[in-house]
């Protein structure tokens, strides 16, 4: 099947408006007769469920957590971008569009990104109307901060808990519709399959995580807002429950999976402390506004710091290597995430890592503390030369800005970041890849939609900070509710979809068989044993830097691990009860397939772009020596994979990317 992205004709700035004006609508009386299933209740799923219900559709919403409010969108810290230009610093829809396409290393679809930039301003209006308490200035107006990879201040925030506040906003909108009976909420339900009838998505099979009951749910359309698949690495900043299962089942039912290898490795996370670690903790990118990243210049100092004989703060300025400032003078510590992460890896690989594992760099606030301290002393008319006073005042400023992050760091690492530099290291954070969708956010399965991080659409090969929240809410509040109407307008005479059909029975049977297999397998190793092994392969061979040899090995190792898993996995208990091991087994089974496709995609893409860095695709000389080298001639396409059984049999379909409004350029932050 050829991919049709269904991008409307016309100039980019009019596409969305024109398209909306000509789209088919469902009249209010008919909406009552149409059911929509929404899986996942994060920013995308939650906002979509609320809006669809408000439009009048009957919505059934599902989440595996005990409440929709717990979806992992809640953990987003820094902020949400919007082209409001409240600061008057030259921001505009076009600039946000441009920054996002450039930040994504020219691997995203122009029309989608422009639409995202266009609706971004409306998101802020919407959220404020809902009572989301964004940070404000003393005059009562909204405050902004700046994020990596851009030259304007367009990020709206609520301290370090922006994701939480926005999710609670979407959750409150859902609550209103649940109270009105327009959304039926199914908590602690996990989607285990998509059901297709006559080629269209018409329902899902779920497992009630408390009772183990397998249920059939039908609808006229199914929307997946099930998040990313970063947990394929075992260690990531994702929640423990974040998984690819819903997306993967959709893939198996015919939805193409696009660009699985595009993964964002976030530069400012707390380093791994030992084998016991179950997840990694991110600290907001906003820290890079004031923190300076460095490692020692000389190996002897690295060793002294590791041995504890030298305190990092005692190392003289001239013996420090502020490598981001050195390599990227224009953007310095605020280069985009992929660049910052790779630079940290480069230094650590060269042996300059500063902790016991050799995988950490310093993020130092000492100079910011001095700068702010002097400023405060000056403003207050105090002695600017009193070092203790300046430090105290400076620490107070830093505390006001980042107090919660500093406290979190101290709790986890047991070191005081006000007095010694933080240690950070990159960690898997976000997946730009995902289910392929067209301009309507519909997958290659008619009636099956995919929104938010779960789809591939807007961030190309790298996502800019504070854009994930923007995309989730744009999809859910403003895009999907329109585009789904176009499809559903053909369903006004369909009537309720029966679950008593062969298609539902077959899907249910398949789900049951797999669950029965797990509880009866009586193998040797726990689910986590396999998950951790998969994570190691992924991190070492499909991580921040990739090469042909490693990727080829990874593919065969994952395949072997998958076979071992199906032979040797051990799941205690039964299906008919709360059984977390059983739920995890199903998720890891899917990760074991996705992991291989991920490596295959990375092997196929013989270029470096955004989060995907191939060691065999770097600039060999000139000013950009050693930087990632994109290959627009051969790889300016979306790689959408069609399921054919084994991941190795997956068939590649290419959606060529056209850049009409932005000139393809090397992404330079020098």
């Amino acid at each position: 099947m050829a991919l049709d992205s269904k991008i409307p004709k016309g100039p980019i700035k009019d596409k969305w408006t024109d398209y909306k004006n000509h789209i088919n609508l469902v009249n209010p009386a008919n909406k009552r007769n149409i059911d929509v299933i929404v899986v996942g209740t994060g920013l995308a799923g939650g906002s979509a469920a609320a809006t669809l219900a408000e439009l009048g559709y009957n919505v059934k919403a599902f989440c595996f957590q005990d409440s929709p409010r717990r979806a992992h969108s809640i953990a987003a810290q820094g902020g949400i971008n919007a082209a409001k230009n409240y600061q008057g610093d030259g921001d505009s829809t076009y600039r946000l569009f441009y920054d996002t396409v450039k930040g994504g290393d020219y691997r995203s679809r122009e029309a989608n990104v422009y639409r995202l930039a266009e609706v971004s301003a409306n998101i802020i209006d919407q959220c404020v109307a809902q009572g989301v308490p964004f940070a404000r200035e003393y005059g009562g107006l909204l405050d902004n901060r700046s994020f990596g990879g851009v030259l304007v201040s367009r990020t709206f925030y609520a301290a370090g808990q922006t994701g939480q506040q926005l999710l609670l906003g979407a959750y409150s909108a859902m609550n209103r519709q649940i109270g009105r009976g327009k959304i039926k909420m199914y908590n602690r339900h996990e989607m285990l399959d998509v059901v297709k009838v006559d080629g269209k998505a018409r329902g899902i099979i779920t497992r009630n995580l408390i009772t183990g009951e397998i249920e059939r749910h039908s609808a006229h359309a199914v929307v997946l807002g099930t998040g990313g698949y970063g947990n394929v690495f075992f260690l990531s900043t994702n929640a423990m429950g974040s998984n690819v299962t819903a997306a993967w089942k959709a893939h198996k039912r015919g939805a193409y999976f696009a660009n699985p290898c595009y993964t964002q490795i976030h530069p400012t996370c707390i380093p791994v402390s030992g084998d016991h670690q179950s997840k990694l903790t991110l600290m907001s990118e906003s820290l890079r506004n004031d923190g300076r990243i460095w490692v020692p210049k000389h190996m002897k100092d690295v060793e002294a710091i590791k041995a504890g004989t030298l305190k990092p703060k005692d190392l003289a300025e001239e013996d420090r290597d502020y490598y981001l400032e050195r390599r990227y003078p224009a953007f310095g510590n605020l280069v985009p995430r992929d660049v910052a992460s790779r630079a940290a890896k480069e230094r650590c690989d060269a042996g300059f890592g500063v902790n016991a594992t050799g995988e950490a760099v310093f993020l130092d606030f000492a100079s910011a503390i001095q700068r702010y301290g002097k400023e405060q002393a000056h403003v207050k008319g105090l002695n600017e030369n009193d070092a203790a006073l300046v430090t105290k005042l400076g620490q107070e400023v830093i505390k006001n800005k980042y107090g919660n992050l500093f406290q979190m760091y101290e709790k986890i690492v047991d070191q005081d970041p006000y007095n010694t530099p933080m240690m950070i290291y990159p960690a898997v954070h976000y997946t730009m890849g995902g289910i392929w969708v067209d301009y309507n956010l519909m997958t290659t399965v008619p009636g099956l939609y995919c929104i938010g991080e779960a789809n591939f659409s807007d961030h190309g090969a790298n996502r800019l900070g504070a854009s994930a929240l923007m995309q989730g809410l744009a999809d859910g509040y403003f895009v999907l509710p329109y585009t789904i109407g176009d499809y559903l307008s053909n369903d006004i005479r369909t009537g309720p979809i029966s679950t008593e059909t062969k298609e539902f029975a077959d899907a249910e049977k398949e789900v049951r068989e797999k669950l029965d297999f797990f509880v009866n397998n009586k193998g040797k190793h726990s689910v986590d044993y396999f998950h951790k092994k998969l994570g190691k392969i992924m991190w070492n061979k499909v991580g921040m830097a990739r090469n042909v040899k490693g990727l080829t090995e990874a593919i065969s190792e994952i395949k072997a691990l998958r076979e071992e898993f199906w032979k040797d996995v051990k799941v205690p208990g039964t299906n008919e009860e709360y059984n977390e091991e059983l739920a995890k087994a199903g998720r890891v089974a899917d990760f074991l397939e996705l992991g291989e496709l991920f490596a295959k995609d990375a092997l196929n893409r013989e270029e470096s772009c955004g989060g995907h860095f191939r060691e065999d695709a770097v600039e060999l000389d000139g000013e950009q020596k050693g930087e990632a080298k994109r290959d627009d001639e051969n790889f300016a396409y979306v790689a959408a994979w069609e399921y054919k059984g084994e991941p190795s049999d997956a068939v590649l379909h290419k959606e060529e990317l056209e850049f009409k409004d932005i000139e393809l350029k090397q992404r330079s932050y020098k």
Partner: protein
Amino acid sequence: MNLTLKIWRQKNASDKGKMVDYKVSDISPDMSFLEMLDVLNEQLVNNDEEPVAFDHDCREGICGMCSLYINGEAHGPDRGVTTCQLHMRMFKDGDTITIEPFRATAFPVVKDLIVDRGAFDRIQHAGGFISVNTSGNTIDANAIPVNKHDADKAFEAATCIGCGACVASCKNSSAMLFVGAKVSQFALLPQGKIEATDRVLNMVKQMDEEGFGNCTNTGACEVECPKGISLENIARMNSEYLKASLKG
């Protein structure tokens, strides 16, 4: 570290349940409390025993899923943290640690250490929102200036993660801190004032129907709250409620 764990085991909602002793060894002080339980569970699975069920998800203190009562306190002995952020360095080698589910009639036990906090959701369905259409035709965000002091207070109230530690810590299993925080967030903002009367009446009514106890102002909730939600929010809800009752 080597530890003895006394853990509440309960097969399902109808089972009676009991405390069971376990031993874990080689626990690193850098582990989080839940990672220590992961070690126990791995050990149980390897010995063909059923692992201990507990709620957890984000493991960074924001989703509000984890909910353990550790040594007589919600989220354990540390302050300002959830169970997932509690680190084993808070304990000593040889310690005995008692781990129970959050106890309240309104939070029935589902299994082992997992409870059903659906009551919180139902309170929110009753009024935890501003009735505004989500399809985008609202006024410009800066057309509603909000006094910074009020905005900050609203934000502080809104940082509640809905974990239920307040209910678990309260000797009366009262949900007033949770509901107070939600009522306060909206009561402090101009956008929320329009339907303030109905909101507080409906939410309190639902809270009472769920079977939570009465607030006797012991302040335990505020101390144990991982997000430091202030008692001020309860007082604000009280006055909002009394005003609303007089009006309505």
